[in-house]
């Protein structure tokens, strides 16, 4: 007995729609097993993870606070992944955006007028895009593996931020805590409904970005170019599309959006720069992008699911003493199941008995993934 894949003549519309849900269900089952191994009642744990955070208005706001950076980063990543460019350094670009946007309120705190916030956002986008341009340029120019360079730059960004907030940018009146001064009121991203909860304009940026990119990807020539170059670089070359330009375009878009997420997070949710400003949003966004099947609208939904796992992790820790680390394990499992279930879209799986069956139709190997 072994598993055998049979290529579908065309990809299954049914499974494209339901595979993320199958993956979610499998993750829940695996999660329940994990929770019972940890000695917790699995139903309780799942309840605190996935239902409890949805019961009150303020926690719905918290959900939006967590979903905003995830969605912003993930829609950018979808452009990269669709065009077969592997930007996995979004966490670094997030930090670079936060630093670049933070220059105004931290270094020039006396500049206080209505232009400060828009300028900060623009600088945040520019900072993230510039940081993403490094691995993109190295790939386009020298064919350097962008996976490794973009990831290495995450560590560099984290160390640089650490140096800034402990060194030159430390709040002079801050009792030696490693943090910058609080952003002044003109530099704070306003909350949408301050009386109801903490959700700020970040979630609006995220939804707008998702809509725009959905339109670009589905309805424009650029979107077609992105998908053609991703699926078949050779066909793209014949169509006159430039793969090395696409490296730059996709990295700049995703870096810019990650930078916007970064500055929105520090200007909205945190209100200052600290040594650590992200609970791994840049990496979790990779899961969001795949759970949303690289479709910006799907990513919006996926962003809320993963945001729920962060909130649920906190809720389960407070109520039943489950380690908050469980959330990370949960997220990792989810990506595994998502990728595994996506196989069902292109293949039928069946159990074969040891002798391979005689088939005449020869499955085409997929297009080479040019990764190395």
């Amino acid at each position, binding site marked *: 007995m072994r*598993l*055998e*894949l049979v*290529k579908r003549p065309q990809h299954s519309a049914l499974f494209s729609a339901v595979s993320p849900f199958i993956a979610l269900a499998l993750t829940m089952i695996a999660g329940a097993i994990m929770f019972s191994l940890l000695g917790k009642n699995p139903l309780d744990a799942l309840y605190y993870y996935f239902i409890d955070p949805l019961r009150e208005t303020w926690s719905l706001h918290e959900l939006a606070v967590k979903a905003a950076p995830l969605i912003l980063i993930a829609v950018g990543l979808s452009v990269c*992944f669709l065009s077969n460019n*592997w930007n*996995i350094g979004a966490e670094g670009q997030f930090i670079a955006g936060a630093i670049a946007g933070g220059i105004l309120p931290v270094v020039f705190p006396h500049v206080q007028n209505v232009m400060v916030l828009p300028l900060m956002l623009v600088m945040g986008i520019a900072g993230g895009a510039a940081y993403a341009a490094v691995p993109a340029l*190295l790939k386009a120019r*020298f*064919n*350097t*593996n962008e*996976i*490794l*360079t973009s*990831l*290495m*730059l995450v*560590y*560099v960004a984290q*160390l*640089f931020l*650490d*140096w800034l907030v*402990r*060194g030159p940018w430390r709040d002079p009146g801050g009792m030696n805590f490693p943090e910058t001064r609080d952003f002044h009121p003109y530099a704070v991203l306003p909350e949408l409904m301050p009386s109801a909860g903490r959700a700020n304009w970040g979630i609006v940026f995220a939804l707008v970005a998702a809509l725009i990119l959905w339109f670009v990807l589905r309805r424009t020539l650029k979107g077609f170019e992105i998908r053609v170059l991703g699926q078949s670089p050779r066909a793209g070359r014949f169509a006159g599309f430039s793969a090395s330009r696409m490296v730059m375009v996709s990295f700049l878009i995703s870096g810019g959006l990650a930078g916007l997420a970064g500055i929105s997070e520090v200007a909205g949710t945190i209100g200052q720069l600290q040594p650590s400003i992200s609970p791994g949003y840049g*990496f979790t966004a*990779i*899961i969001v992008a*795949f759970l949303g099947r690289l479709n910006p609208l799907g990513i919006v939904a996926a962003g809320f699911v993963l945001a729920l796992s962060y909130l649920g992790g906190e809720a389960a820790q407070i109520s039943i003493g489950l*380690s908050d*680390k*469980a*959330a*990370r*394990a*949960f*997220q*990792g*499992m989810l*990506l*595994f199941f998502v*990728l*595994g279930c*996506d*196989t069902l879209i292109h*293949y039928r*799986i069946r159990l074969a008995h040891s002798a*391979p*069956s005689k*088939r005449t139709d*020869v*499955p085409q*190997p*997929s297009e*080479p*993934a*040019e*990764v*190395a």
Partner: protein
Amino acid sequence: MLESILITIATAATPLLIAAIGELVVERSGVLNLGVEGMMVMGAVTGFGVTVTTGSPWLGVLAAVLVGAAFSLLFGFLTLTLVTNQVATGLALTLLGLGVSGMIGEAFIGMPGIKLGSIAIPILSDLPYVGRFLFRQDPLFYVSILLVAGVAWFLFYTRAGLTLRSVGDNHDSAHALGISVIAVRYGAVAFGGACAGLAGAYLSLVYTPQWIENMTAGRGWIALALVVFASWRPWRVLAGAYLFGAVSIGQLHAQAIGVSVPSQFLSALPYLATIAVLVLISRNRRLTMVNTPACLGRPFVPAR
């Protein structure tokens, strides 16, 4: 003085070397497993946990190797049996490993570890200058050197090694010759996982005998870069690992003697060095084109 610096370089280089030599075999078979970091951190937490509960570091090492291999088979099942995207699945393995190890390791934070003792080889370890460096080391140091020699011999002087390389260079031809591409790749992936687990155990049992969350700190990724740097040649991995060991020990020494550069900048050096080295290597297209396994990262579905 020089000798003690050499020894510290060896402790920094050995985990990189073990993880990289495992990944080299995986990539030679045509599979790109980006989950090294995740398998390594699982090895670190398993090695530490089993050691402190049983009191035997050797059992810890064994468990780390087994867990590393088992964890890699998860990746193998997805990429080889379900032909998922190797890049994405490798990332998933890393994220899963970091999450699960953080969860398991919570109980071990702050616990004193047990260090794997050194083994001195009689007579040779008394040699001047190099005796202590080469012949009075922790056992995994010897294992790492043997691994490099063994892999170099296996890949280039055995029939099985030739088979493995042929699978990595042209899986369709290998399949046509009756080689089971998927089985060879499963074997390579499991070997890579075992090595990554061993490298992780080195970190939590020799390098710093304790458990710290995310204690691999990007070493799995540096190991991946080393394979590219070495252009898929075993002995060059050895050279690369010691070069990187020297960079990271150099920056630690610079921090210790108080060089007037912020410590964060020095800590960033190994990562920046990785980027610089990758650029230098990849600029030389001919070198990379000749040595890169031609089917690296490409999915294989056997034609029936």
